[in-house]
């Protein structure tokens, strides 16, 4: 009987873990000693950071998509279905088609999704660039943009903590390129008392936005949207009229966690910050956006976690070993500061980031990464 590793979620973290483990254990898989199953509700993988470029007509959707099956290392079985519940007693993942998958070790890589219903009127009055459909609708709205007032609102938590800043700065330069900057007013809002949750970023953004004539409204928690009058109301009592409302809605974890009594507040999995075990379950691990760890929800985080987790899974699957590799909170985020320059943040649990001077070289590095992300997913880089 082979040892069975089941991974739920065929996104960035799930694919990377599956591929790292499959490459390390290819002989064991060939000999039938280990079986790896990846269960995913989507057959097509989408590179989400690309949405930011789709919005400004800088990338086409087709450039962001690949069939999941083409991204898998040999030996991984892909099952296209949704996990509806985990039976931790029977060690089974129940599927929406009624079947069940038995596991010895389980990885939950179910990511995060938008909560669009928390704010009344947002669906009708707002735009967002955190889904492909949303990005395309916003792209169409920008194609019609001749000036007016753009209001950006942010709900927390959300993935890619710097994307709202990137959108704002890219939009600002884009209006200059389009020669409509003088007819465009930009208001960036943030739920906290400063412009970003990461202090170094907040300190950098304030003068940067002032120099670019982008207004910052802090302590702004979007409460409701009057889509007929085009006014965004905050919980703090600030009303902002808008011509275009772009919102980064608050995120939540997948329902699977609640259905399985495994997740806590916000549907995030309570996670050991070093070995990535779901607390209280020796045979269940998690990574990426799905955890409750106090770190950014970012693809790079999922990547660094996948390396650590794969190391540990190899030991667990082949020798029944305890996990020894430790994740140290490492994160890396590019920040596009317009359409020609970028900077980056690099940090971990112990070391908060600083913001280096933006350069054209970092921008091109990011452009290159957008096109070679696939090699990273396949764990060949």
């Amino acid at each position, binding site marked *: 009987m082979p040892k069975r590793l089941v991974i739920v979620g065929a996104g960035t973290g799930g694919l990377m873990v599956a591929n790292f483990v499959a490459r390390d254990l290819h002989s064991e898989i060939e000999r039938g000693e280990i079986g790896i199953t990846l269960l995913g509700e989507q057959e097509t993988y989408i590179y989400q950071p690309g949405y930011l470029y789709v919005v400004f007509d800088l990338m086409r959707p087709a450039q962001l998509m690949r069939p999941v099956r083409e991204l898998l290392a040999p030996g991984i079985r892909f099952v296209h279905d949704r996990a509806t519940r985990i039976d931790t007693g029977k060690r089974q993942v129940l599927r929406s088609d009624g079947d069940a998958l038995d596991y010895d070790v389980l990885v939950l890589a179910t990511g995060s999704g938008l909560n669009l219903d928390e704010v009344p009127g947002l669906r009708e009055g707002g735009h967002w660039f955190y889904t492909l459909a949303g990005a395309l609708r916003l792209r169409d709205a920008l194609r019609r943009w001749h000036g007016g007032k753009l209001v950006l609102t942010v709900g927390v938590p959300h993935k890619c903590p710097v994307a709202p800043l990137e959108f704002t700065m890219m939009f600002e330069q884009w209006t200059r390129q389009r020669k409509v900057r003088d007819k465009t007013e930009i208001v960036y809002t943030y739920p906290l008392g400063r412009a970003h949750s990461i202090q170094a970023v907040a300190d950098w953004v304030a003068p940067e936005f002032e120099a670019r004539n982008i207004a910052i409204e802090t302590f702004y928690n979007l409460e409701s949207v009057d889509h007929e009058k085009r006014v965004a109301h905050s*919980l703090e*009592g600030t009303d902002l009229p808008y011509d275009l409302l772009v919102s980064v809605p608050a995120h939540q974890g997948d329902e699977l966690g609640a259905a399985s009594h495994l997740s806590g507040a916000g549907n995030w999995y309570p996670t050991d910050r070093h070995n990535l075990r779901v607390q209280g379950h020796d045979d269940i691990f998690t990574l990426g956006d799905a955890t409750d760890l106090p770190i950014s929800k970012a693809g790079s985080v999922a990547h660094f976690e996948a390396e650590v987790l794969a190391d540990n899974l190899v030991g667990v699957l082949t020798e029944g070993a305890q996990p020894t590799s430790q994740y140290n909170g490492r994160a890396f985020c590019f920040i596009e500061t317009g359409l020609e320059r970028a900077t980056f943040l690099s940090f971990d649990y112990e070391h908060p980031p600083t913001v280096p001077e933006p350069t054209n070289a970092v921008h091109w590095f990011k452009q290159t990464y957008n096109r070679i992300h696939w090699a990273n997913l396949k764990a060949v880089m």
Partner: protein
Amino acid sequence: MDLAPLRIDARGSFCPGPMMELIRAVKGADVGQVVVVLSTDSGSKKDIPMWAQKAGHEFLGVDEHGDYDEISVRKAH
């Protein structure tokens, strides 16, 4: 009628966790009700009074308990 205070345990959650938990609770509370958040994050003591002032709610103070703080706000409107 006195409403029982709402207590939220946000210990172990980091900035902006406790403040966002408090904001969410104030949103769902009744006018006049007190919301108490338990926080181990030192930033909460600074951020929450500033938020309450901006949002027009009454900041009632901080009770320090060694390794955590109890921060109270009364929903004013």
